[in-house]
C-alpha cells in the first residue's frame, strides 16, 4: 500500500507492504511530517524557525525539537569541517539541509515502533527503506539522471535498513552553497548520492559533501559506513569503493 501527500513543498511517499499496512499508520506518519513542516519551514510565517529568525523567540526559549536540530547542526558542522552550516549568507537560520532527513528518520521510527518490518519512506528524493518490498525483494532505488527533468534512472541500488539521499545542482540551478566560499561555483559535481546507516546520516552528509565539491569524494571514502556516487558535469560518475556492494540484489 502506497500513499503520497505534498508536505514540506515536496511529495512525501509512504509504502508499507499490504500485509502490514493500516490507514492509521499512514495518517500518523503524514501528520508527523506536517508537524515538522509547521515548525521548521522558513517559508511559513508562523513557523518557529521564522519566529527565531525574526528574533521573536530567544534561543533559550526554543522548543525541544528546535534545540535538538540546532545541536545536531552544530555537530554536523564539526564533523564536516565547517562544510555544513544552517546559517545562510543573510545571517538567518535555515535548517532544511538536516530537517528532512531527520524527519524521515523519525517517521521510520514511528513505523518500527508499530512493529512494521517492511516499508519505504521518501520525502523529496531522500529515502529510508526497511525489510523488503511487496515482491519480497530488497527495495530497489534508482538514482535520478541529473541531466534530465524526466524521471530517468541511471543507476540502481538495493537497500534495506539504510538511508539514501541525493544533492545536486541540476535542472533549476544550485540550491546548496559552499559556506566557506559563497562564490564557489561547485560546478564540477552536478549530483551526488550518499548511502548511509540511516537517512538522517545520509542526508546531512549529502548536503555538506556537495558543498565540498571534488574534495567530497575522498571525504566520504574515508567515512566508515558511508558510500557515495558522484556525477560530474561530463556525465562521468565516480563511486566509493564499497558502493558496489549495493548494486547487487
Amino acid at each position, binding site marked *: 500500500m502506497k500513499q503520497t501527500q505534498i508536505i514540506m513543498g515536496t511529495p512525501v511517499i509512504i509504502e508499507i507492504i499490504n500485509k502490514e499496512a493500516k490507514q492509521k499508520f499512514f495518517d500518523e506518519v503524514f501528520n508527523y511530517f506536517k508537524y515538522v513542516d509547521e515548525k521548521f519551514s522558513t517559508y511559513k510565517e508562523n513557523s518557529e524557525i521564522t519566529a527565531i529568525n525574526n528574533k521573536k523567540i530567544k534561543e533559550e526559549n526554543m522548543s525541544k525539537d528546535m534545540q535538538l536540530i540546532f545541536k545536531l547542526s552544530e555537530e554536523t558542522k564539526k564533523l564536516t569541517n565547517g562544510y555544513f552550516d544552517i546559517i545562510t549568507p543573510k545571517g538567518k537560520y535555515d535548517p532544511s539541509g538536516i530537517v528532512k532527513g531527520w524527519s524521515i528518520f523519525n517517521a521510520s521510527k514511528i513505523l518500527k515502533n508499530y512493529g512494521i518490518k517492511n516499508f519505504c519512506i521518501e520525502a523529496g528524493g531522500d529515502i529510508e527503506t526497511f525489510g523488503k518490498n511487496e515482491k519480497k525483494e530488497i527495495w530497489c532505488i534508482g*538514482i535520478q539522471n541529473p541531466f534530465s527533468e524526466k524521471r530517468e534512472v541511471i543507476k540502481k541500488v538495493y537497500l534495506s535498513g539504510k538511508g539514501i539521499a541525493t544533492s545536486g545542482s541540476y535542472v533549476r540551478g544550485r540550491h546548496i552553497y559552499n559556506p566557506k566560499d559563497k562564490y564557489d561555483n561547485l560546478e564540477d559535481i552536478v549530483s551526488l548520492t550518499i548511502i548511509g546507516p540511516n537517512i538522517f546520516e545520509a542526508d546531512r552528509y549529502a548536503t555538506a559533501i556537495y558543498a565540498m565539491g571534488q574534495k567530497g569524494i575522498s571525504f566520504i571514502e574515508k567515512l566508515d559506513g558511508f558510500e557515495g556516487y558522484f556525477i560530474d558535469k561530463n556525465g562521468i560518475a565516480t563511486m566509493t569503493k564499497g558502493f558496489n556492494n549495493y548494486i547487487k540484489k
Partner: protein
Amino acid sequence: MKKIILSFSLIFTFTAYTLYVRILGANTSVVLTPEPNKLKAPLNLTQYNKTIVKPKSTSFPSSKLISNSNSTPIPITMPNTISSSVINTDKYKNGSYTGSIVDAYYGNVQVLAVVSNGKITDVQFLNYPKSRQTSVNINTRAMPYLISEAITIQDSNVDTVSGASFTSAAFRKSLEMALFQARI
C-alpha cells in the same frame, strides 16, 4: 662426436635463452615503466573501450594497457602471434576479467575489467603500488583509486527514485542566493 653435439646443444640453449630474455625483456621493460602521469586522467569509459585488452592470456600483463586518449598511449611491443589473439578492440565477452599482476616498478598493479553487452562497463584497480611512501605519494596524485563509469540510462523498474529535490521552495532559495550575490 659427443663433444660436438654437446657444444652445439649448449650454444643452441644459450642462443634460445638470450632470445627468450630479449623478447620478454622488451615486453617487460615497457610494462615496467611507471609512467604515473599516464594514469592521471579519470577512468573514463570511452578511453578504456579503445585501450583495454581482454585479459585472456595469463602470460602477458595485458591489464597494464591503460592510457589516456589525449596523450600517446604507452607503447607495447608483443610478439605478433600472441598480440593478435589477445587484443580484440571490437567486441568482448560478458563477464569480469582480472588482469595479471604487473610490476609497475614502484609496486604491483592489477585491474579487473567488467564486460557487459560486449562493452567494458567497469575497470577497477585490485592492486596498485602502495608499499613505499614514494609510491603512495605518486598514487594519491596520479591514480584514481576509485571506480568511475559513464552514466547510462537504465530501465525504470525500481521501487522509487533518489534525486535532488527541486521544489518551488528550493527554486526560491536558489533565486534568493543569486540575488544575494547580485547585490554585491
